[in-house]
Structures are given as structure tokens and as C-alpha cells.
């Protein structure tokens, strides 16, 4: 209804209803208070207009009861909004475990997307309905922001690190994709479309069937590309997963905690893997020497994402000389 009137954007993901409900609640609340204040002002201004130039109204000092009332009631109302909006936010920030991952790299002025299966897109993103999807974002130059109004999601893509956002599309169709963080000359052209498809259509599209833009050239899966890189960059020489190797074994390492030389421990996640490739000396796993060279400049953001994806697919081999795990 409101969408047809052009007052709400299309709702095409599970979060849209939650965000809209909060929005409409706030509209109602604000409308009530704005009307209350406006009405009181108008009524008072007319009812108590100055009738003679010499009129001196009797002073009213104030009232502690009233002051407390209009301090405490708004405070309680804001707390309701706070907890409600925080719930929505936490849900927006917590991708379900079964979410499939896609990688998005922003650069002036385009969005480059790669599906796990290998399909690449520019300024377009095809997604299936009914499937939670987690986007891992980064940027090659300045800060961008991946904004899909129909999904009510937005997240800055910050150079030098990973951020993420997730959604579960509900309604097939084509929706706007905007860059929401000012990024230079063609900021307003750093736009694209999100194509939501029925799962079957999506599968067909993935395999290059339906006539979507971009042929099936990048058909090798992300993990496969990562494996190729892993080999060509010579990573396997040291991280071969045997005891006595120069570097820690990587099988099954993701998601665990490793102890560092400094005595602290760190959780192995995308960020840590990224740092360890670009800046290997920063956090050395206990029991290893700082001998790894940096790969900064040799790998692009997309290469990095492929490598990390590949490392995530590795499984622990029994008896490997891995890092000292905790938990």
C-alpha cells in the first residue's frame, strides 16, 4: 500500500518488514509528538494572545511534577526504541551459519562481485530467493558503501580490511544497488542492480544458462582459483602441513584460536588471514620464525579473497605440525 504510494521502497528481503515496522512506529510516535506540540502552540498562541499592550500575565514558576513527567516518559519511550532498534541491528549484523558467501570489491567507480562458484559480475549481483547470503566487502582505493534500499542494508567497504553484511531475498525482481559513501567523481554512477531470482533460475544462471551479462568465463570456483594461487605463489612450500614445516599448517585452522609468540592468542578469521598474507610479521604463531615474506603488491584484493576462501576449504590432516590451538 505505502509502497504503491511511493512512500516506501520495495521490500525484497526478510529485513525489510522489520525495518519498516520500526520506521512506521517511529513515524507514529513522532507524528503524535509533533502534532501535540504544534497543536498546543497554536491553541496557546490564539487563546492567550495579547489583548492589550499593558497586559501582564501572572507568572508561573514551573512545576517539578511536569518536568519529571516530560523527562521520564520520553526517556522510557527512547529506551523502547533503543532496544527494538538494537534487536533489528543485531539481526542485521549476524549472518546465519548457513549463509553462502559472496565477495564484493569496490573500486572507483564499480562494484566487482564474485560468486563462490566462480561466476564474476560487475555492477550486478544475481542472488536466489530464500537463501541467506553474506557479502564480504572490501575496497581497492577509498571508502565505498554497498547499499541496497530494497533489502534495507548498507555497509561501508573499507580499504585494508573486511566488512560484511547479509540478507535473505524474498521477492524476485531487479533492485537498485547504490554506493552510499562519497567516493569521487562518478560516485553517482557507482550504481548497479541486484537481480533476485527463484533458486532454480539462479542455478541456471550460475551455470551460464540464462542470458545474463558476462559469459561463463570465470567459471572456475573461487576456491579453485585460490588453490591455483596457493600453488603458484609457493605458499605450499612452507604451509604444507607436515611437522617441521617452516609455517603453521593451515588445514582446519579457520575459526580456531591460535597462540602467538607474544603469548596472546588470536582467532583465525578473514581479517587475521589477510593480515598474515600482507603483513606476516605482525602476529607470528608461537613456535615459528618470522621468515615469511610479505605478499603485499603481489596479490590483489580479489586474489586475497580467493586465497582465504581456499584456506577455509582445507581440512586438518591428522598429526600435522600445526599451531598450538586453544579451545
Amino acid at each position, binding site marked *: 500500500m505505502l509502497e504503491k504510494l511511493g512512500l516506501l521502497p520495495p521490500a525484497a528481503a526478510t529485513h525489510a518488514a522489520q525495518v519498516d515496522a520500526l520506521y512506521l512506529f517511529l513515524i507514529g510516535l513522532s507524528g503524535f509528538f509533533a502534532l501535540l506540540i504544534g497543536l498546543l502552540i497554536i491553541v496557546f498562541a490564539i487563546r492567550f494572545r495579547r489583548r492589550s499592550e499593558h497586559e501582564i500575565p501572572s507568572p508561573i514558576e514551573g512545576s517539578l511534577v511536569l518536568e519529571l513527567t516530560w523527562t521520564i516518559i520520553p526517556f522510557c519511550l527512547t529506551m523502547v526504541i533503543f532496544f527494538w532498534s538494537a534487536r533489528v541491528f543485531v539481526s542485521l549484523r*549476524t549472518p546465519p551459519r548457513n549463509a553462502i558467501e559472496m565477495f564484493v570489491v569496490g573500486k572507483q567507480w564499480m562494484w566487482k562481485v564474485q560468486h563462490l562458484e566462480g561466476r564474476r559480475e560487475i555492477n550486478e549481483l544475481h542472488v536466489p530467493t530464500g537463501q541467506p547470503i553474506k557479502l564480504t566487502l572490501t575496497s581497492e582505493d577509498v571508502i565505498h558503501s554497498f547499499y541496497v534500499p530494497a533489502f534495507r542494508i548498507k555497509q561501508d567497504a573499507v580499504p585494508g580490511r*573486511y566488512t560484511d553484511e547479509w540478507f535473505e531475498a524474498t521477492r524476485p525482481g531487479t533492485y537498485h544497488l547504490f554506493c552510499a559513501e562519497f567516493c569521487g567523481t562518478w560516485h553517482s554512477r557507482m550504481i548497479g542492480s541486484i537481480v533476485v531470482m527463484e533458486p532454480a533460475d539462479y542455478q541456471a544462471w550460475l551455470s551460464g544458462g540464462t542470458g545474463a551479462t558476462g559469459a561463463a568465463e570465470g567459471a572456475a570456483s573461487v576456491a579453485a582459483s585460490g588453490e591455483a594461487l596457493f600453488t603458484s605463489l609457493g605458499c605450499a612450500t612452507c604451509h604444507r602441513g607436515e611437522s617441521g614445516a617452516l609455517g603453521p599448517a593451515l588445514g582446519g585452522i579457520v575459526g580456531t584460536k591460535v597462540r602467538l609468540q607474544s603469548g596472546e592468542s588470536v582467532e583465525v*578469521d578473514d581479517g587475521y588471514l589477510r593480515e598474515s598474507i600482507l603483513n606476516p610479521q605482525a602476529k607470528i604463531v608461537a613456535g615459528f620464525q618470522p621468515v615469511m615474506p610479505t605478499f603485499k603488491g603481489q596479490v590483489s584484493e580479489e586474489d586475497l579473497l580467493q586465497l582465504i576462501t581456499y584456506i577455509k576449504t582445507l581440512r586438518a590432516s591428522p598429526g600435522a605440525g600445526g599451531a598450538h590451538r586453544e579451545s
Partner: protein
Amino acid sequence: MTRDDHAGARHDHVVPLPIYFGVFVTLLVLTGVTTAAAFVDLGRLNVFVALTIAVVKASLVLLYFMHLRYTARLTPLMVAIAFFWLAMMIMLTMADVVSRGWFTGALG
């Protein structure tokens, strides 16, 4: 507070000389202590010790050299507010920096 309130003469306190020299010597000793303490491995405590000594030294300078101990309440209050603001700037910024990794852990 208003103009006619401070009808008395100057109330700037003249700090006795021994106090100045005492503070000076204390500051020198504390400088030595902080440098020496830095060479002892106290783990995470090192930074804590260094900053505590720095705060003590700064307080001595503020209270005695800068006469904060002897001025009207207003000045110490304002100094406290400024340091509070600074502390807030550092703490709330650190609240972000420290906890950034916490959420991604669940994602792997």
C-alpha cells in the same frame, strides 16, 4: 562570584620555597623510578606503572607548580572536565577498536 564578592585583596597563594624544592626532587626521583621500572619485565603492568607515575608527576606539577591546590574550586573543576572529555574520547574510540574483531568470530 560577582564583582563585589572578591572585595578582599589578592588571594593568590604564595607557595613556600621548600615545597617547590620538595616537588622538584620528587619529580626527579620519579623520573628515575619510571625509567628503571621500564627495564623490569612486569608484563602488562609495565604500561600501568609508567602511566601511574606519569599521572602522579603531572598531578604534582598541577597542584604545586601551577598552584591548583590553592585556587578557587572553579579551576580544578574545569581541568577535571577537560581530562574527563579526553578520557571519553580515548575510551569510546577504544571501545570500537578493541571490539571490532568480536563479531566476526561468529561468522567463519
